[in-house]
């Protein structure tokens, strides 16, 4: 990974916080340069006008790009001083490891060790706002870009998620093509193309060049994406590692022009910089195509793109997914997961938050932003399941707590202290569970059909969709499917495909509530061997899906579901049900096998009864044959199943 981790950080004034770590050996860069032109020109190429700088903090000389990375690093160190000059000439910003600690305007006074007040002054001068993009550029692991192999997969994942979400929202059966091209040993180009509704021209740069820009964060609705970070973060990663912009082609409907954009994210300002904006010829009537060039590592196996797309296909039976990967000797391999369902899933409905699922901070903010004239109206409008009965009960609670506020108080006038008590009181009032028709599970039949199709080597399949349930005011629904036996590896641990809103979860397996639920279940009750504290062992593939308006992930990279007791409980129930079915199947198979075995006993041992009786009773051969035939008939009659 890159070494230029530091970027300039400004913390709010008045907080005596030291800027982030500042390794030794960094070279100062004139501060005016930093502030005004903080970005590298990523690439002198691309038809971008020179004035539009590609955001690329800490990137090397453009010339050096063709060279291997390590050598570039070395060259950079060796030619250090010159770089600053180069940077100036090219309007480069911080190319060094410079941080605010050594670059402040009052650098001299710091060095001379001035008095306390001065220090505060000095520090104040260093304190400034942190751009969200900068934050994530430094903390890319939070978004799933910890290493080159994972970065590649995360990029595919984000692009595919967006494509599927767009298609589903538009009610289009998705046709998605994922292409991976290997440009160099560690450089790849990921292209994801869909037949979705397309993106209108104005939105394209923001969607791909601005973090936390999206439509899904504020809607309480089941969707794959949530925060609007994913694809722009992938673009940012590509930019950081290769200097290449994100290329987007999109047509928002038949007859409209196909727009082609090349966008980079300005990490300091968290805004998109558009390098190219043209219309192009494109054979798709509608859809979007996004291409990101990035450093990466192509791997097969559990965390591979192939495996990921297979899992996507299982949870999205209505989608056709084509994967074009680098084949042997420069060729390409084409893998197609054709759809098994011809109906798009029911479009999930957005719901208002449930009072029990809202945290205090958000509650306060909602009150601040509300234009409602009274608390009564505010609560009824902004939340689900709040009616007169709830208001009456709430008023009782509030009065009992001795608060001044009434149902008629305008929400913006409620003092913070009372708002807190109000929030607590709301938690005590009995409120109906939130509506659950906002969820769109895959469904037992489709899940079963998809699993049969995608994991064809098993011989037993089952699927369970639980009724919706609620955690912390958020509706959710659990589905479990399993494939067992056949040619699946019998002596390996079971494979667990985890899904959240149809998105496969790839990493942090052991931190996930789903894994915990599987490990905690006594699989031996279902005739599957299991070591203590481990996944069951056997030819078993488990699919666990949580559909929710808000899936509680343990981190922003959305890799593991948090251990809410309600969620664990529901997963457990679903696993138990499918486990019971599996146990029944295994029991039956064993009985059938035993039956076969016993049937062979008849052929094997009855002749010996004949021989023994013949010897003892001195029977003729004919008599013996009669005895054997009669006994065989009698026993076979009794075993008929």
């Amino acid at each position, binding site marked *: 990974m890159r070494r230029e981790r530091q970027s300039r950080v400004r913390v709010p004034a008045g907080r005596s916080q030291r800027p982030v770590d500042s390794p030794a050996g960094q070279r100062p860069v004139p501060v005016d340069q930093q502030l005004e032109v903080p970005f590298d020109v990523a690439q002198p190429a691309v038809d971008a006008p020179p004035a539009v700088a590609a955001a690329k903090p800490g990137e090397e000389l453009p010339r050096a790009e063709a060279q291997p990375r390590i050598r570039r690093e070395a060259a950079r160190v060796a030619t250090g001083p010159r770089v600053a000059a180069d940077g100036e000439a090219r309007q480069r910003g911080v190319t060094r490891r410079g941080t605010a600690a050594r670059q402040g305007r009052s650098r001299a006074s710091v060095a001379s060790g001035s008095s306390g007040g001065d220090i505060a002054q000095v520090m104040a001068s260093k304190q400034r706002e942190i751009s969200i993009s900068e934050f994530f550029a430094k903390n890319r692991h939070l978004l799933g870009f910890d290493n080159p192999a994972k970065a590649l997969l995360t990029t595919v994942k984000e692009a595919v998620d967006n494509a599927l979400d767009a298609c589903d929202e538009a009610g289009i059966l998705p046709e998605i093509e994922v292409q991976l091209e290997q440009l160099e040993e560690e450089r790849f180009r990921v292209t994801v193309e869909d037949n979705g509704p397309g993106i209108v021209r104005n939105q394209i740069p923001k969607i791909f060049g601005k973090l936390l820009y999206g439509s899904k964060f504020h809607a309480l609705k089941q969707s794959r994406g949530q925060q609007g970070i994913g694809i722009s973060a992938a673009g940012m990663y590509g930019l950081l590692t290769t200097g290449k912009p994100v290329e987007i082609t999109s047509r928002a409907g038949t007859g409209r022009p196909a727009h082609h954009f090349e966008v980079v994210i300005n990490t300091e300002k968290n805004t998109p910089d558009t390098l190219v904006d043209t219309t192009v010829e494109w054979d798709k009537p509608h859809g979007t195509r996004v291409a990101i060039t990035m450093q990466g590592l192509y791997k097969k196996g559990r965390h591979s793109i192939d495996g990921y797309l297979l899992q996507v296909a299982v949870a999205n039976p209505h989608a056709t997914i084509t994967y074009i990967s680098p084949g042997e000797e420069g060729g390409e391999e084409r893998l197609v997961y054709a759809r098994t369902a011809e109906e798009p899933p029911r479009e999930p409905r957005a719901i208002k938050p449930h009072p029990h699922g809202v945290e205090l901070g958000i509650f306060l903010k909602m009150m601040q932003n509300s234009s409602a004239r009274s608390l009564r109206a505010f609560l009824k409008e902004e939340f689900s399941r709040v009616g007169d009965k709830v208001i009456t009960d709430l008023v009782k609670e509030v009065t009992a707590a001795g608060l001044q506020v009434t149902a008629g108080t305008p929400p913006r006038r409620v003092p913070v202290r009372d708002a807190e008590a109000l929030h607590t009181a709301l938690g005590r009032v009995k409120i109906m569970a939130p509506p659950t028709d906002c969820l769109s599970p895959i469904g037992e039949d489709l899940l079963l059909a998809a699993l049969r199709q995608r994991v064809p080597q098993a011989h037993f399949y089952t699927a369970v969709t639980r009724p919706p349930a609620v955690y912390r005011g958020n509706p959710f629904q659990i589905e479990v499917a399993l494939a067992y036996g056949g040619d699946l590896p019998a002596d390996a641990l079971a494979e667990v495909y985890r899904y959240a809103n149809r998105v496969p979860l790839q990493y942090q397996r052991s931190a996930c509530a789903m894994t915990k639920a599987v490990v905690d279940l006594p699989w031996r009750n279902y005739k599957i061997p299991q070591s203590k504290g481990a996944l069951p062992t056997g030819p078993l593939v488990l699919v666990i899906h949580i559909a929710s308006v808000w899936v509680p992930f343990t981190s922003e990279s959305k890799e593991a579901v948090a251990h809410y007791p309600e969620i664990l409980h529901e997963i457990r129930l679903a696993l138990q049900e499918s486990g019971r079915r599996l146990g029944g199947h295994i029991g039956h198979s064993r009985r059938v096998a035993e039956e076969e075995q*016993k049937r062979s006993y008849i052929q094997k041992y009855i002749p010996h009864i004949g021989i*023994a009786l013949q*010897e003892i009773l001195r*029977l003729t051969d004919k008599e013996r044959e009669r005895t054997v035939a009669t006994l065989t008939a*009698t026993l076979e009659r009794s075993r008929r199943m």
Partner: protein
Amino acid sequence: MPKRISQAQLGGIRKKNVQADRRTVELIRATADEVNTRILKQGKPDLKFPVRALSNVVYAENKGYFEIGRQKKVRTLTVNTVKAFAQTLRMMSLSKQLVETHDFATKRDAYYQSKNWGAAMFQDQTESDTVMDDIEALFSVSAINREQLRFIPDEHGGAVAGELVVYDPDLETGEIERIDCTRFGSGAYSIPSLVEHLSFETEAKFILAIETGGMFQRLQSHKFWKKANCILVSMSGVPTRSTRRFIRRLSEEARIPVYAFVDCDPYGISNIYRTLKVGSGNAAHINQFFCVPGACYLGVTPEDIVEYKLPTHPLKEVDIKRARDALKNDPFFLQHRAWRKAMEMLLKMGVRAEQQALAKWGLNYVMEEYLPRKLKSVAAFLP
């Protein structure tokens, strides 16, 4: 010296043996016939075995030994049991063949015989032993023991010396061999594995069953049997099947009592003597043939330890456990108050004494003093 048996009597012995064998064959045939008839009637044949579990063992007070109860386990011929059924029938066929050819087979022999049975062969000897035990139990109901089925144990019996003539028909010729047990010099007659066909002639007054070979040798070498007019039998620990059967048959046919002379410790009393007299709970189905209910206990008794001032060793942990267990659970001890008292006394003293402890008073003290004195008061022997 014993009187000679007449030719007519020998003919009778021969006839009796032939009859016994005929009965065995007939029972096997009848069992097989029942099975065959049932099959031909399109039914599932079954065999009824007495349940061989401790729950089905009762102590027969009037007979004085453990007996198998009335519970029967019915094994019906189904697909599940077809293998065991085939093996049982083939084993019965083997038994019939052995009787008819006046031959015999040990457990190991029978196991190897099965290797000729193709699919019905036994994989290891435990399998064939189980089937053999089943057949033994099956026919024990008809008072036929395993030896009569010509399945004999591997171990032979103990040694015999004294006023006894054994008539042993030759397997091949049927000629009866006369064995005089007084004429073995310092050696002894060894009880064969199979004793069913033997006949006896004796004028001895009792049988002395001795625990150790050493004591037996002393009494034999000094011809104690002549002095006491008795038959000496060496048991060498817990008596084998054939030793027990030999003593049983001899005492019954000659109508003479059996006196046991063993070490004074819980093992000698509750294992050796008790097994000789009433058999064991584990093999209750064979006790009717093997135990010697008429036996009584000459010594060494706990009282002897005091009376003869015998050197002792402390009781071992296992001895104490065995004694307590016997007092608590063993129907034999529950039955005999005298034995409970003796065992309690032994536990109280906390010591044990061996037969050879009498050597304290001189090597031949046992036959010059101890045994004659004991034999004067036979009525005082422990039951």
